[in-house]
């Protein structure tokens, strides 16, 4: 049978093993399960496919998707297209990394452990923070865990979240907090595309404030002012992000006074994969480390005094603390963290900076061209590689026409922000050529 290539047992093996355990058939192995608990009918799923049939089937499904290079996708909104060096994909495929478990036995897992230690280090440097964990699931769950941590540290009951934080992250935060007695207060955004801090002055019980920078509207928040506003409050400043490449160009969250920096790391060498698996990046100040969620790798020595790495500070975690743990997270996104550190290391400090600048310059070129073509850029604030354009009423038709030409002209914002009718969020990374940008401007102008 074709399906059995992962099952090494020959009929003779099975017979010998059954004999050894004193049972006469495979069915008999389940004889101790009460009769009324046993399934009578066979599983009603498709019959097994050969490897070659499966390839054909999957190719058909995967062929029914709109992806580059066939399509030009000017859409970011929390998921970004960047070139991934072959060396990264190739190394990430090494099965010593891929098929290992969480490194509970450090003597046999030094590869994963050192790599995650390096990920923690480069992440701390990128975000300007003192300590980063080994990963969360995605940007959204990282934000939710950050707000829970802010509450643990501050012992307050209210968190404030900017409306310019990714709308889907905010929904996940709401889901996490729903069964608790914690309150989420939303801060509106101003006409320049940054967060309106004025409602903060009436919030006495504030434990944490979350802003995203660059925010969902593409704008860089004025983090220095925000930090200033929080000065006399106990609240922790949580700076969230969905495009960490921006910190190759702009000041990082740590430099701006963030207590926790968290967000999505998909941008760093991880394929988009329809939204997952991605990478929840999470970092904070060292003084809060015992309140952090997630796994941490630390450096130590072995019996011979040689440097090595282990999972550490486990007393925060569910398998030791059980109901008193800082989080329930167990399996995280280790392999995605590995992809990110390989990507960061491959670019290096110089490459990271140059790539960030290229994203910015392309985006600025595109902005200028769109503006020159007579379209409105409603938000004046500085952006990185995405920005909002207000198109004339009826642009929907043009958008549909462009889809037929295999161009996805940004992400329509009215679903998340009903007040932003005809507003689209456009993204340009290094993967877009000048001709692609010129072509789109021409198309929307005609």
């Amino acid at each position: 049978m074709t399906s059995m290539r992962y099952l090494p047992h020959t009929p003779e093996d099975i017979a010998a093993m059954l004999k050894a355990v004193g049972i006469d058939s495979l069915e008999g192995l389940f004889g101790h399960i009460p009769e009324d608990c046993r399934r009578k009918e066979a599983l009603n799923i498709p019959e097994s496919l050969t490897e070659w049939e499966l390839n054909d089937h999957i190719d058909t499904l995967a062929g029914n998707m709109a992806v580059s290079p066939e399509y030009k996708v000017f859409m970011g909104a929390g998921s970004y297209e960047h070139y991934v060096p072959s060396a990264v994909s190739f190394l990430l495929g090494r099965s010593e990394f891929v098929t290992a478990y969480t490194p509970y036995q450090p003597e046999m897992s030094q590869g994963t452990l050192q790599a995650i230690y390096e990920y923690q280090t480069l992440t701390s440097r990128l975000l300007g923070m003192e300590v980063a964990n080994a990963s969360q699931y995605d940007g959204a769950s990282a934000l939710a865990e950050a707000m829970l941590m802010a509450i643990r540290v501050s012992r307050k009951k209210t968190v404030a979240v900017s409306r310019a934080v990714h709308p889907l992250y905010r929904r996940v935060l709401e889901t996490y907090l729903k069964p608790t007695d914690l309150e989420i207060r939303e801060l509106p955004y101003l006409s320049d595309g940054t967060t309106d801090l004025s409602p903060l002055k009436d919030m006495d019980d504030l434990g944490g404030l979350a802003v995203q920078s660059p925010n969902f509207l593409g704008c860089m928040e004025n983090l220095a002012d925000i930090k200033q506003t929080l000065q006399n409050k106990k609240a922790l400043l949580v700076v969230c992000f969905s495009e960490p490449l921006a910190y190759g160009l702009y000041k990082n969250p740590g430099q701006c006074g963030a207590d926790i920096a968290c967000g999505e790391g998909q941008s760093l060498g991880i394929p988009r994969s329809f939204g997952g698996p991605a990478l929840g990046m999470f970092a904070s100040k060292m003084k809060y480390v015992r309140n952090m969620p997630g796994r941490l790798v630390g450096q130590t020595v072995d019996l011979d005094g040689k440097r090595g790495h282990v999972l550490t500070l486990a007393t925060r975690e569910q398998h030791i603390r059980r109901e008193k743990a800082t989080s329930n997270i167990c399996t995280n996104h280790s392999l995605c963290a590995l992809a990110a550190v390989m990507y960061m290391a491959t670019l290096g400090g110089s490459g990271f900076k140059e790539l960030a600048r290229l994203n910015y310059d392309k985006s600025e070129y595109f902005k200028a061209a769109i503006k020159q073509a007579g379209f409105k850029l409603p938000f004046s604030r500085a952006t990185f590689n995405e920005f909002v354009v207000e198109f004339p009423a009826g642009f929907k038709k043009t958008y549909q026409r462009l889809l037929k030409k295999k161009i996805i002209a940004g992400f329509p914002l009215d679903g998340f922000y009903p007040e932003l009718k005809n507003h689209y969020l456009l993204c340009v990374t290094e993967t877009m050529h000048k001709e692609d940008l010129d072509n789109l401007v021409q198309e929307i102008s005609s």
Partner: protein
Amino acid sequence: MKETLGTTGLVFNEPLLWEKGKKGRSGFSLPRRDVEKHAIDEKLEGDGPDFPDLSEVDIVRHYTRLSQWNFSVDSGMYPLGSCTMKYNPKTNERQSAQPGFALAHPLLPRRLSQGVLKLMFELEQYLTEITGMDATTLQPAAGAHGELTGMLLFYAYHKSKGTPRSKIIVPDTAHGTNPASASLCGYRSILVKSNERGVLSPQAVAEIMDEDTAGIMVTNPNTLGLFEENIKAVSDIVHARGGLVYGDGANMNAIMGIVNMGDLGIDVLHLNLHKTFSSPHGGGGPGAGPVCVRKHLEPFLPVPRVVNKNGKYELSEDFPDSIGKLHAFYGNVGVMIRAYSYILSMGPAGLKKVSQLAVLNAAYIKDNLKGTFHLPYDRPCMHECVFSDKLQEPYKVTTLDIVKRLMDYGFHPPTIYFPLVVSGAIMIEPTETESKEDIDLFIESLKAIAKEAQDQPELLHAAPRKTKRRRLDETSAARKPCLSG
């Protein structure tokens, strides 16, 4: 015995990344600049990250050497109990890497993402059928995330009936994630002890189940590798008081095609696609933790849900009672593709065979090692068996010593010191993908170690010797944390 698997060979030392960089090197082919530089707001501009600069060769050697310090399923048997470290088929990697999936933007217009939506829709159906439940969400990103989803479902269900209740019953054999997930939803865990047979007794549950208890979290088969034979009676007791039954499906590998979770009275069940459904564990994820429910909980499932409207697949938000969203997008699609490919490769007979052979392998190990190691619950096991270090106590040899020595023999250690109900537990889950020869060698190795424990205990105390590093000082790592370099 034959030659042991474990040996020593030439492995390389490799410094930390930033100990080998040199300014002026680069490992990246910078995309061509075809636009001018634009001015930037100086107040916002930063210095860029302080990363080392390395060449591509530096990077490739670095990670190749690091990878060689890891043990993995592809190198050998990895019998971690409750972790189901089965072989990860390579065709699954090919499928999930198809550009149509790997490059797909999650917010693509729906008609341009029909392929992946169809796959997700069908995977939900297959998982629903395999578990014998009524509906499935694929959104949770890991097992513990699935548990959280389950607890949110409990909360939403009870709230819809009036009050969310405040307590949850958790057996003493439960995974640590269970109580941690429950407390995220404000539930206080009430411990129930398993009986002398290692399973739940209906009486013990009846004594603590009340109208303020939201339900019970049960792992079945449990972490002792035993089938919870009273599960139906336990479910009846919980249901009679208006509670719900949560099934931790971490151990689903034992019962595919054998038991319908829905028939046992389980209302909510999470699966680990990175255990039962063969997607690789990645050194700690990404996994995926789909949640299957019975009909009465379906309205509360996370959104968006994949729906089929006249042959067109859509993502629908139109479920007003939904608990909301657990993931920015739809979950770990790349992992779903692997699980889908696995299910289609195995087919109905194949999946049942998987469970039969997983149980056969565990039973064979249990019977062969009984007597060599103490077997606290000498009963028919499912896909894993739990021993202890009690027989080695006179030689001052512990579980930790035994499994560290096992490394020198070329095997990854089993799960140790868990479940907590067995002191010095050694929890072995071989999975179905290990051959009789490899299992025989594993048994022989453990027998040889038991003999060494008697004759040369110092060998065990000093183990491992053949690994890249010897035992590491975890105490000082925790006392003076050094978490970045």
